[in-house]
C-alpha cells in the first residue's frame, strides 16, 4: 500500500496511513507512520524478525515485571495467567476481513489484576473484529504489571496478525509504570502527548 509508482523518486510513502482508513480519520494515531516499510519480496522475513525480537523483549519485560510489583489482593493466578499467555492463540486470525475497522477502548483509572480479566475479554473481542485498536490510557492513575503484560501481549499478537494497536494519551502514571518495566518503547507510547489529558 505504501509503495509509489516505479518512476517516482520516493520509494516508501510514509503518509500512506492517512488514506488507509478515511472513515476512521478522527481516531487515527501515530502508531501507523512509525511502522517500517517491508522491502519488496521480503515482508514475511522482516515480520518474522520483528515478532521474534518483540517476543524476546516481551519475555524479559514480563520477567522484570514479575519481580517488580506484586498485587496486593489475592488473585486467581492460574486462570489469569492462562488467559494472558493464550491471548495470541485464542484470537482468531484476521482471515477474510476486508473492511478497515477500528475499535476504541478507554482504560479505567485503576487497572489491576481484579479488572484485567474483563479487559482481556474486551480486547479479544475487539481483536477479532477490528484491524485497529485505539486504547485511551489518559485516565490511568494506577496500573499493575498484569495489565501491562496484557497490553504487551496484545501488541505482539497484533503484529503477528498485521493489525495495529495504539495506546493514546498515556497518563503520567501509565508512563511511569511502563518506564519502570522498560516497556515504553515496546508499547509504542507516545511521549509527545503523554500526560496531557
Amino acid at each position, binding site marked *: 500500500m505504501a509503495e509509489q509508482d516505479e518512476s517516482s523518486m520516493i520509494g516508501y510513502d*510514509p*503518509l500512506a496511513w492517512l488514506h488507509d482508513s478515511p472513515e476512521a480519520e478522527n481516531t*487515527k494515531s*501515530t502508531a501507523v*507512520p512509525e511502522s517500517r516499510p517491508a522491502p519488496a519480496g521480503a515482508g514475511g522475513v522482516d515480520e518474522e524478525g520483528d515478532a521474534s525480537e518483540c517476543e524476546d523483549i516481551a519475555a524479559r519485560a514480563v520477567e522484570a515485571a514479575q519481580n517488580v510489583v506484586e498485587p496486593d489482593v489475592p488473585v486467581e493466578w492460574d486462570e489469569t495467567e492462562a488467559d494472558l499467555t493464550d491471548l495470541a492463540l485464542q484470537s482468531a486470525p484476521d482471515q477474510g476481513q476486508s473492511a478497515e475497522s477500528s475499535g476504541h477502548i478507554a482504560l479505567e483509572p485503576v487497572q489491576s489484576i481484579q479488572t484485567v480479566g474483563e479487559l482481556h475479554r474486551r480486547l479479544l473481542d475487539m481483536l477479532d473484529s477490528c484491524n485497529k485498536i485505539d486504547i485511551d490510557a489518559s485516565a490511568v492513575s494506577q496500573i499493575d504489571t498484569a495489565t501491562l503484560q496484557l497490553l504487551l501481549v496484545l501488541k505482539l499478537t497484533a503484529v503477528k496478525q498485521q493489525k495495529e494497536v495504539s495506546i493514546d494519551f498515556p497518563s503520567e502514571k501509565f508512563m511511569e509504570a511502563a518506564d519502570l518495566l522498560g516497556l515504553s518503547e515496546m508499547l509504542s507510547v507516545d511521549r*509527545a*502527548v503523554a500526560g*496531557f489529558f
Partner: protein
Amino acid sequence: MTSRIVAVLNQKGGVGKTTTTVNLAHALARMGRKVTVIDFDPQCHLAVALGVVSKQQSGIDEVMLGNADFAGQQIPVRDNLNLIVAGPRLQEIEQLSDSASRRGDLLRKALAQGTGDRDLVLIDCPPSSGILVANALFAAEELLVPMTSDYLALQGLSHLMGTIKKFEAALNKKYRLLIVMSRFIPTRRLSRDVLHTVKKYFPAQILATPIRETASLAECPSFGKTVFEYRPGWRSARDFEALADDFLTGRVM
C-alpha cells in the same frame, strides 16, 4: 476583536519554521495587517532574526507563568509587527511540577486574556514534540506547517500528522491546517515528487507559492533583517509577498 492564532510548527528541524515566521509575518505587516510573532523556541532564533538579541529580556515565559500580560510583553520591531521574545524562563515550563495537562494549557489561557488589536498571532514553535509544542497546539486554531521537499521531511510530516490527529481527537477540535513548501528546489526531481506526494494527501491545503531555496534567505538572519530589508525585490522577497497573499486569500495548490 478576535485574532487568528496560528502555530508555525514542525517537530523536524531545518524545515524553515523561523524563516517562514519572520518573513511571512513581515510580509503580512507590510500589507497592513497587525501581526504579533511569539518566539516559542528557547533558542531565541526568531528574535535574533528580527534583530533582538537580549536573551535576558522576559517575554512569553512570564506571560505563561502569570507574571505579565500579552500586551505588556510586546516589542514593536517593525511597522505593524510586534515581537514577544521567548524569555529566559521558557525552558522552566518543562520542569513545572503541575500536571502535564495544566502545563500544556498555559499559553492558551494566557492568550485567552486578550490579544488586543492584533489581526494575527504567529507562534514560532521549537523543533520538538514536547510541552511547548503541546501549548501551541492547545492555543492555536490554525496550523502552518513548513516542510522541505525531501524524503525525511515526509517522514516527519507523517509523525506530525499523527500527533495533530491525537490532539484533534482529544480536544474535539479540527485545526485549519496549511502547508508551506519551503527551501524548495524546483529543478530537483525529488522536490517535485515530494510535492506531488504531499498534494495527494493534503489537497487544497498547500499554499500556492513554494518558497524557493536561496542564499539570501540563509544570510538575512545574521543581519537581523527580514528578506524585505536585506534583499528587497529579490526572488525570495517576491516569494514571501506571494505567500502572504496566498495566506490571506486562501490560495492553495
